[in-house]
């Protein structure tokens, strides 16, 4: 049984097919990359899987269970977390509180220890991505690179079985990109059963960490395979002509 199984997913806007009959799956412990030129439908796919958009047709199964039609927060509760391409921090909250929002409330503890437990867990999450220094800083004051990491920490806080990252390397400098790559690999090692899906444009970063790549173009899946294979795939190169690798 696949962790996530998407079949014949289609979504149109007006006359335009943003996602056209897409099939793919993610298994436990896999890191899968989704690439494709702009407008290929990658983010739309994320929106559908995370419950923010309803597809016109198709099925989605998570751990064998049908998740089509569930509200976004319910999908998070089932174990799928996602980040956004353009960061969406909670500006009026300090960094640590951003993470606290996503943490599941522990059960059975007394109320006072509750907060302490949540705070401690939040600090742990921030350590995972290297943001502990900025803990008390209002998110409004935090730089872009750090916000990207905060976005990931927040997604991780929901303890997902499937983590979906939408362009996590967007706008990062080489140092930050390197750090993030290592973070993702470390997170993967810490939770070997967790699946990770990454949509990304920075192919040199992506190809190094994923096991399998899916290529989308104009809403359709045009190729799938190991990173080395995809890099040599004629159709993919054509579609990407002019794009830097």
């Amino acid at each position: 049984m696949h962790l996530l199984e998407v079949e014949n997913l289609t979504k149109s806007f007006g006359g335009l097919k943003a996602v056209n009959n897409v099939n793919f799956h993610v298994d436990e412990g896999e890191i899968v990359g989704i690439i494709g030129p702009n407008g290929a439908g990658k983010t739309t796919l994320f929106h559908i899987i995370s419950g923010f958009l309803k597809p016109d047709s198709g099925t989605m199964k998570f751990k064998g269970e049908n998740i089509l039609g569930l509200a976004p927060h319910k999908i998070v509760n089932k174990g799928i977390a996602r980040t956004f391409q353009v960061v969406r921090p909670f500006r009026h909250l300090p960094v640590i509180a951003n993470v606290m929002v996503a943490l599941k409330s522990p059960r059975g503890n007394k109320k006072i220890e509750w907060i302490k437990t949540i705070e401690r867990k939040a600090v742990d999450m921030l350590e995972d991505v290297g943001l502990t220094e900025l803990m008390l800083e209002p998110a409004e004051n935090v730089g872009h690179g750090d916000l990207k990491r905060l976005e990931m920490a927040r997604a991780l806080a929901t303890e997902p079985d499937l983590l979906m990252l939408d362009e996590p390397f967007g706008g990062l400098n080489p140092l930050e990109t390197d750090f993030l790559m290592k973070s993702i690999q470390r997170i993967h090692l810490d939770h070997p059963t967790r699946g990770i899906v990454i949509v990304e444009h920075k192919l040199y970063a992506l190809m190094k960490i994923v096991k399998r790549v899916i290529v989308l173009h104009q809403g359709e899946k045009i190729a799938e395979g190991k990173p080395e294979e995809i890099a040599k795939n004629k159709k993919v190169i054509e579609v990407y002509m002019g794009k830097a690798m």
Partner: protein
Amino acid sequence: MIDVELLKSILLYGVMTGGLYALLAVGFSLIYGVSEVTNLAHGALFMLGTYVFFFLATPYGGIQTNLFLAFILAAISVAIVGSILYRLTIDPVVEDPLMVMVVTISLAMIMQEVLVLGFGSYRQRVPSIGEELAKMLGTEDLVVVWGVKLTYSRILAFALSIALFAVLLIYITKAKSGRAMRALSQDREVAMLMGINTGRLSMLAMAISASFAAIAGVLITSSTGGGVTYPHIWRTPLFMAFAIVVLGGLGSIKGAFVGAFIIGYIETIFSFAIDPIIASILNVPGGASLSGAVIMATMLLVLFFRPKGLFGKRVELEE
């Protein structure tokens, strides 16, 4: 059995009320469409129009001009006041909807109290253009249409409203700035990307909106509201305008038009037919107070099924 006379009265009064309300509502919707401003001072501009007219057209202010001239001057002056107030107080905070509402309602309060200081808080008689017209034509202010008694005031008010509304429609379809306004109402981001100057356009929209409010003020108070105005009168047109616009969809001219007639008819049907029935069943004296509640309730009902109004924009990334 069905009372044909009653039906005819309802039909005609409903259409005329709808027409008047359309003028009032469309201004409110316009400024929202162009600059996303919920102008809670819209009713106050209505009121300002009536007072300027009152001041110019009666001996109260020491001048007494021709009624028609006073009418035009009222529309123009309120348009100017409206756009100046917009530039000074609303434009600086236009990105924050809550602050815009706070500012506009404060403006309404200020206008209310300024009028109290200037004219006192009691009712003032607003002369009727329709009556004047009838006098000029040498007839009584009474016309019988299709067996229903109507006044010149009402007919004139209705005709003027529809005419102005038509002019606005032509403006937003043909004129460059008008089309720009329409583009902004329909898809703000795209319109702004096309380089439309929202600042100046907003002031223009405000001028139009304010003048419509003022015109509606003079027409409605003189032809229906008993011919009076007073400094607290701004609340009713505000509630009416927003009930109509919310029901029809904020920013939609079509919505304001349709909504105005829906509300106009509901109000007419209620006061002519239902209110007397309820009054006799529950043994309570009838009252206008309930019609306001009924109108609001209708608005809520529509929102329940269409959270953005009948013709409002639909959001994609939600569920």
